[in-house]
């Protein structure tokens, strides 16, 4: 038997399939697409193909992320907070604090004995998310994936004080015209984003082990900036984008197992792999 987790984020959709032992049998990432959430079924199909499985082989599907509410083939929706926490715990058994910085939000989760017990989120202000770096990358004509490495070359970071992404762009241009080095400005930008996320995390009283996930965790400059701002070590999973879907898949397995133990059969849904729809 297999269990599926699908994480429909604003930029990327991720799907993970696990077996009865909780081992990952396939993991796939694809763009959510400009039409938002409509390609979730495509990503799911890719995950099934990768494991040479069919939808009927999946005993339970958990959907998470922004698009979780309208996935016709999901058995249950669980918030990305709980799913990320579970996914992180499966990879780092001593985790107490998980921080996820995505393209459009930042989340912090307090984990106690593997369960999420508290959380804090920012999904209102772009300046505290990956979008902040993306916008500035555009302004500087640098590739987003190069920003982190470049920032690490800095010996003296330039403070970027604007708390608004739009004004930060202006500030960056002003600093450049004053002759500041690109890597120093980048270091300042990473520090600015890290300080905002760290402030969010501190509402939960940061305790080790601290794990960083999300697309932004692939940015070595951000990992350093987060360490500096939090004043502690950080663990980063091999694929920081997959924690949500992994957690969702593991929770799917748990739910199905619990149901079976109670003698219930998971409502055999006539699942059809339909496109997700917009919520009303």
């Amino acid at each position, binding site marked *: 038997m297999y269990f599926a987790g699908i994480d429909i984020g604003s930029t990327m959709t991720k799907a993970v399939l696990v077996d009865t032992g909780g081992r990952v049998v396939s993991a796939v990432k694809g763009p959510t697409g400009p039409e938002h959430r409509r390609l979730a079924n495509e990503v799911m199909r890719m995950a099934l193909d990768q494991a040479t499985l069919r939808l009927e082989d999946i005993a339970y599907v958990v959907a998470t992320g922004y698009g979780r509410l309208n996935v016709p083939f999901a058995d249950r*929706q*669980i*918030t*990305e*907070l*709980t799913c990320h926490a579970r996914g992180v715990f499966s990879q780092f058994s001593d985790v107490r604090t998980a921080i996820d910085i995505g393209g459009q939000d930042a989340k912090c989760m307090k984990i106690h004995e593997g*369960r*999420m*017990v*508290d*959380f804090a*989120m920012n*999904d*209102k202000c772009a300046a505290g998310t990956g979008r902040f770096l993306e916008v500035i990358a555009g302004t500087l004509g640098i590739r987003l994936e190069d920003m982190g490495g470049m920032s690490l070359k800095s010996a003296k970071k330039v403070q970027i004080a604007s708390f608004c992404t739009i004004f930060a762009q202006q500030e960056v241009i002003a600093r450049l015209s004053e002759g500041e080095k690109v890597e120093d400005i980048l270091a300042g930008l990473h520090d600015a984003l890290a300080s905002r996320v760290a402030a969010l995390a501190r509402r939960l009283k940061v305790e080790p082990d601290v794990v960083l996930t999300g697309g932004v965790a692939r940015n070595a400059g951000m990992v350093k900036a987060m360490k500096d701002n939090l004043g502690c070590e950080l663990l980063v999973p091999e694929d920081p984008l997959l924690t949500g879907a992994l957690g969702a898949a593991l929770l799917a397995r748990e739910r199905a197992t619990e149901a079976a133990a109670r003698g219930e059969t998971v409502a055999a849904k006539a699942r059809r792999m339909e496109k997700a729809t917009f*919520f009303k």
Partner: protein
Amino acid sequence: MAKNATGLDRAREIYQDRSRRARELKAEGRKIIGYPCAYVPVEIITALDLVPYRIYADIEEPVTEADRALPAAFCPVMRSCLDCALKGKDDFLDGVVATHSCDPQEKTARVWESHTGYPYFHFIDIPGTIRPEAVEYYEGQLSDFKKTLEIFAGRKLSQARLKEAVQLHNQQRSLVRALYELTKPEPPLISGTEILQVIKSLLSLPVAEGNALISQAIDEVKARRNGPGKKPARLLTWGATMDDADIMDIFEAGANVVMDESCGGIRPFRTDVKLTQDPLNGLSRYYLKDISCARTFREAALGETTKNYAADIESRFGYLKAIVRDWKVNGAILILVRFCDPFAFEVPSLRDYFDSFGLPSTYVEYDYTKGSLAPLRTRVEAFLETIIR
């Protein structure tokens, strides 16, 4: 729309079109007095044969007119109230009574008064503490309010009439408390959404009609079989105002809301006004001391010269512990609109208090627009995921 809808159906009807009854009454020659806050003594309005009408904000109405008088960084509820007033949406009102309940209301009231042309407008000052001299001063404020309303109504208010009004409104309070008794069972017999609709409706009706409405609702709820389903969590919601059923729906997607400590819930109805020789005494004591709104400064003992945090929060929030126990609440959601200062200052202390007896709680904020409800959903769901196994 069924003219003879009763109880819950009538409440749902009125909820969709709140001012309908007030407009009917106005056409019949009655005078309608609007008020935006639970601190206004409606008994005085009722006793002078005027119809009190609770003004609510409107989450569906985008704010446009209020921009010229109030900045965006401002309590969105009061801003919306002013916006609706400036747009003439409450043109059926013959007057408005506002209070110094909190800064936003105090500031909005001034602009409200100067930018609209109601025949009657009165501002009641409310002191910040419940010291004896504050209660005295407040009684003077109520007496002044009574005077100007008498002039407007064209008649003097007798103590007998005022006593009657106090009793009628107390009856309403007791009926709302009876309604909340119906959420004690597991599952509750009535949902938080339904109660919100009932309360919002009864506050748009004259008190006797409102009382009839709740009585019908109570009978219906007791008799019906299709009440809310049992959900894995029983919640207490706490905040300043709660006026939109869509927000309740978000909470009740995964839980039963068994108590709402807000002005759209139990707060204006929790205890009765004491009937005193001079009814103004009882009214001033009730309105200043017994409404559990964060705007009033309370301490464990007046003028205390020693302080103990645990005793302080027990004295301020103790009534909630009894609610949690009696309604078997297993989680609390503190929900505020952005820029609500008096309640926002209380959040960490209230959460400390809940922690002290092991009640999980979470704080969520929204900006009083429909768009802010989606993030609210995620936070509420995540909270439920932490407390439900």
